[in-house]
């Protein structure tokens, strides 16, 4: 089942998405993060939180665009979700396809390895010895994933585990499915 998603992702990216200059995008995101660092006096934990919450608000809207353009319904299992996030979701919005790796035995956890992270191009973290330990520069992605998945009733813990900017060998996001939320039902039915 992995092949069609790749094709769908490429098709949606090519024919159905508006594109903007990627350097402009990278620089805009960079100035947002830089501004947050100034606003919070380099308290990187707060910056991470703020980026995540911005991402969440993006995610709950982005999911509708994703569904409108792909016409997907709900996934059968979390493996399918992983494939779709990587091959269609990331492809469509960021033109990159992270690798799905380390699927846990219970099928509820996996890592996304971003070989190529458009947000982090040209970026160097501040050399205050704190940023490399505390700041997750691309933390907006964590919020986006969390928000988008929550709207399709998947309660997922998302967090960065590695980032090349911090000197790690790769950039990785961990996703763990907590539970599948129940659809709301009208009053008086069960």
């Amino acid at each position, binding site marked *: 089942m992995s092949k069609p998603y790749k094709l769908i992702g490429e098709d949606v990216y090519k024919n159905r998405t508006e594109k903007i200059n990627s350097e402009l995008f990278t620089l805009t995101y960079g100035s947002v993060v830089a501004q947050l660092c100034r606003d919070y006096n380099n308290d990187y934990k707060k910056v991470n939180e703020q980026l995540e919450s911005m991402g969440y608000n993006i995610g709950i*809207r982005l999911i509708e665009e994703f569904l409108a353009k792909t016409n997907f319904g709900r996934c059968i299992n979390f493996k399918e979700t992983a494939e779709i996030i990587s091959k269609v979701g990331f492809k469509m919005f960021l033109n990159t396809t992270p690798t799905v790796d380390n699927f846990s035995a219970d099928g509820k956890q996996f890592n996304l390895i971003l070989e190529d992270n458009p947000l982090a191009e040209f970026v160097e973290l501040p050399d205050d010895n704190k940023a490399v330990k505390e700041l997750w520069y691309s933390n907006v992605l964590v919020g986006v994933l969390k928000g988008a998945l929550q709207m*399709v009733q998947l309660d997922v813990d998302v967090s960065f585990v590695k980032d090349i900017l911090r000197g790690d060998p790769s950039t990785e996001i961990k996703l763990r499915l907590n539970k599948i939320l129940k*659809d*709301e*039902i009208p009053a008086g*039915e069960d």
Partner: protein
Amino acid sequence: MIYSFWIFDRHCNCIYNRDFAQHKPASKDTVNRNNDKDEAKLLFGAIFSMSRLSSKLSDGNVLQSFRTGKYKAHLKETATGLRFILISDSNVGDLSGLLNQLYSDLYLNTIVKNGLSPVDFKEGMVIKNMSFINGADELITQNGDFI
């Protein structure tokens, strides 16, 4: 002929409703008139129960429409739990194209991409955005099945 258009959100509330049957050329009097009426609750209940029934009959079996003696209800349900419903007379064919347009073009551009509009509606909130209302009227009234 298309009689009315309804949107229910993930909290099962009617966030938009528009009646085309009584006023032509359509005046805006019938926008969001029946959101809390019994009719809305019954319609939602019927769609809800039939969707459940169809998915119980077979996995991935999605309810698209159902027909009674005089009416036909057309449904599009998104993975995020939005339900778009059109009520027409019983002879109208497939309206899934129109429902897709209402969601993919109109709802996306005037609600989702509109920073001033919520996407998670609180109880009692409805869509009042004129670009949405006018856009929906245009798409529906220009559809070949409208008259």
